[in-house]
């Protein structure tokens, strides 16, 4: 007669909205999806290219096959439409092959997948994967190596290298790309006479001057939502990336770099200093990422440092959490740091991707389906339905959101680097990072020394 049965025992439908960093979904909660209402009217007017079967060559694979497919994004109509349309078109072209998709949200999906894999039965043929679990799934041998089965013109392998440390192997199709930039309210900048250099990157001093100016005007300089701890980690790791440079930063992941390394400590210190100087909203500890977006859209803050899924959110109808239709966006790089070795790095990684189960009977058919998904029309459809970058190669001149174009331009100028440590550190060290850096970054009582101590100790316990 108590609560003995954990009545829902749920693992997450209400997953604590893990922040932007978590490779995951862009942000869609809209009814229609893909309304590029902000600046570029054309895509909204032109019909989305039909995902016809006509473009594919005679199918090399034949059924009969019945394929199970578990996908994330249950709550995002834009992405669902993309997947549903793709499946419908593929099935038309390949009678005899049936693909059944079950929709989940991230944490329940991970639970279900982990349970099925560990039990050795009941696992799907194709499934969504992202940074939270793909490393352990790869290490455990549950993901099929698709090298040689995918059309490498459509799937640039760099998309894999950036996030996955498995040279020479291909474990999934990187559908979603995430580019981390500083977004700013172009109108506020204009009104205050702030200009962004042509290189699109300010120095830390310039950036802080801007923030001081904004603060003086009574606005929040930089918004953030650290309630899910991932954003705090992102903020910290961005600075570490700047100070320590590519090699040392990666060294944290394979334990070559210690946490007490001066560059690492300096990075953490700089990150913390922004909090101490009051550059953030004082509700940062309690806001989730999406709630922080609202601050930006409501013009209470001038800037927000976040991944490209902001755009997906922004293009929702204003009532569903989108930005007002006259909002003016701008993007720039995270500022450079004096003497930093990683100033030319731009945060870039893979978000959601689809993988194939290594023990599936239909690996070739799945690979063929994924190829189909990644063809040029698919790439365009993806960007138009979801407003999120993709690694898939879209044909030149495809009409996409101008902000998306801006971000892609930055990718060409700067060097790509996965800026995240959250979800790439594991076990006690990972948990400690989420706790002491992710949460502790914005807690007055946690010092950088304490962070370093806890992280070092956690690493020891993992050994």
């Amino acid at each position, binding site marked *: *007669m108590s609560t003995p049965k954990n009545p829902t025992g749920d693992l997450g*439908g209400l997953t604590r909205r893990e922040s*932007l960093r978590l490779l995951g979904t862009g*942000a869609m909660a809209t009814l229609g999806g893909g309304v590029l209402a902000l600046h570029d009217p054309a895509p909204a007017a032109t019909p989305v290219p039909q995902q016809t079967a006509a473009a594919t060559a005679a199918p090399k694979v034949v059924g009969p096959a019945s394929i199970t497919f578990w996908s994330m994004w249950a709550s995002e109509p834009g992405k669902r439409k993309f997947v549903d349309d793709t499946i419908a078109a593929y099935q038309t072209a390949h009678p005899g092959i049936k693909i059944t998709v*079950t929709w989940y949200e991230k944490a329940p999906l991970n639970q279900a997948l982990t349970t099925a894999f560990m039990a050795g039965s*009941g696992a799907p043929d194709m499934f969504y994967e992202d940074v939270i679990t793909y490393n352990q799934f790869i290490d455990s041998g549950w993901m099929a190596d698709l090298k040689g089965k995918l059309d490498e013109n459509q799937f640039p392998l760099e998309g894999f290298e950036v996030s996955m440390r498995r040279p020479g192997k291909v474990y999934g199709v990187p559908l979603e790309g995430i580019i981390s930039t500083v977004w700013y309210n172009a109108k506020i900048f204009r009104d205050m006479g702030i200009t962004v250099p042509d290189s699109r990157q300010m120095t830390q001093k310039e950036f802080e001057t801007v923030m001081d100016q904004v603060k003086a005007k009574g606005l929040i300089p930089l918004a953030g939502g650290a309630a899910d701890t991932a954003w705090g980690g992102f903020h910290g790791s961005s600075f570490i990336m700047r100070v320590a440079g590519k090699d040392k930063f990666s060294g944290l992941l394979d334990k070559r770099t210690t946490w007490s390394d001066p560059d690492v400590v300096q990075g953490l210190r700089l990150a913390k200093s922004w909090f101490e100087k009051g550059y953030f909203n004082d509700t940062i500890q309690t806001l989730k990422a999406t709630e922080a*977006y609202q601050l930006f859209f409501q013009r209470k803050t001038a800037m927000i440092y976040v991944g490209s899924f902001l755009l997906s*959110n922004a293009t929702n109808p204003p009532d569903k*959490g989108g930005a007002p239709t006259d909002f003016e966006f701008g993007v720039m790089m995270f500022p450079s740091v004096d003497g930093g070795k990683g100033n030319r790095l731009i945060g870039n990684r893979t978000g959601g991707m689809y993988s194939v189960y290594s023990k599936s009977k239909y690996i070739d058919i799945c690979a063929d389906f994924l190829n189909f998904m990644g063809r040029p029309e698919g790439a365009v459809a993806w960007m138009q339905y979801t407003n999120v970058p993709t690694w898939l190669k879209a044909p030149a001149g495809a009409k996409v959101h101008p902000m998306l174009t801006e971000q892609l331009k930055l990718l060409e100028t700067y060097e790509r680097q996965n800026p995240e440590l959250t979800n790439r550190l594991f076990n006690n060290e990972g948990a400690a990072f989420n706790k002491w850096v992710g949460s502790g970054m914005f807690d007055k009582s946690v010092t950088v020394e304490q962070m370093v101590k806890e992280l070092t100790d956690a690493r020891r316990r993992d050994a």
Partner: protein
Amino acid sequence: MNTNSVFGDRPWMQLPWWVVRTLLVAALLIGYTLFTLGPLLWVVVLSFRNNTAIYQNPFALPSVLQWSNYLEVFHRTNLPMYFVNSMIVVIIALIGIVIFASMAAYAFARFSFRFSNTIFWAFMATLMVPHQVVLVPLFKTLGPLGLLNTRQGLIAVYIAFSLPISLYILRAFFQQIPGELAEAAKIDGADDWKTFWRVMFPVARPAVATVGVFNFILLWNEFLFALVFIRDDMLRTLPLGQMHFMGEYAEDIAGMAAAVTLATLPVILLYVVLAEQFQRGMAAGAVKG
């Protein structure tokens, strides 16, 4: 003012005690009712508003009832199907629980046999273990039995895990039944089986009602097992429908409120309708200790 009064110049202290007490009780009654019902009503109100308005003023009442949130719940999810599945799974599980638990509880209460206590406490012990822990072994067990991704599998799991608490309640009840009843039935020539079904079980109706309502609440809202053991969207139960509104980046408060209201409504209605039975069951049933 009568300055000779013990209360000096505080006239309100001169109120008779019974008035003060009544006021306090009234305050308690009203206040606590607001405390319990307030949040629930707030959610229902939220479900009729739109998100922009909610951000402006979390408190206000909508000027126009927006049914669009509810429509969206039906549009985005397979809600009627989930509802049917929940009904099937929960009701069948309840029938199983009531029958099996009554039988076993009766045995524990009225038959004397070795290890009776031990076995009973073996049943009770698992109340203390969280469900996540048994996920993988259970998954592995259900597979070979062909029970994965089926309603039957979920029903079986629900029955098994509801047994401890049901046994507890029913056993306590059966222990309180006067022995004369059984004696009388025996004299009439009935064997134990018939005695149980003709005499004891009907008498136990209040406790059975308690067990029924209690488990209904828990099973209707159960999420974890339903999530992991059921894969087909057509077989999913109601709590899983909520997943469609709890996205990573979605801030659709109004939509969530509607989904959540729809999911809870059956339980609330059931309770309101059966409250009396439930109360009587608790009174006659497991509470004497």
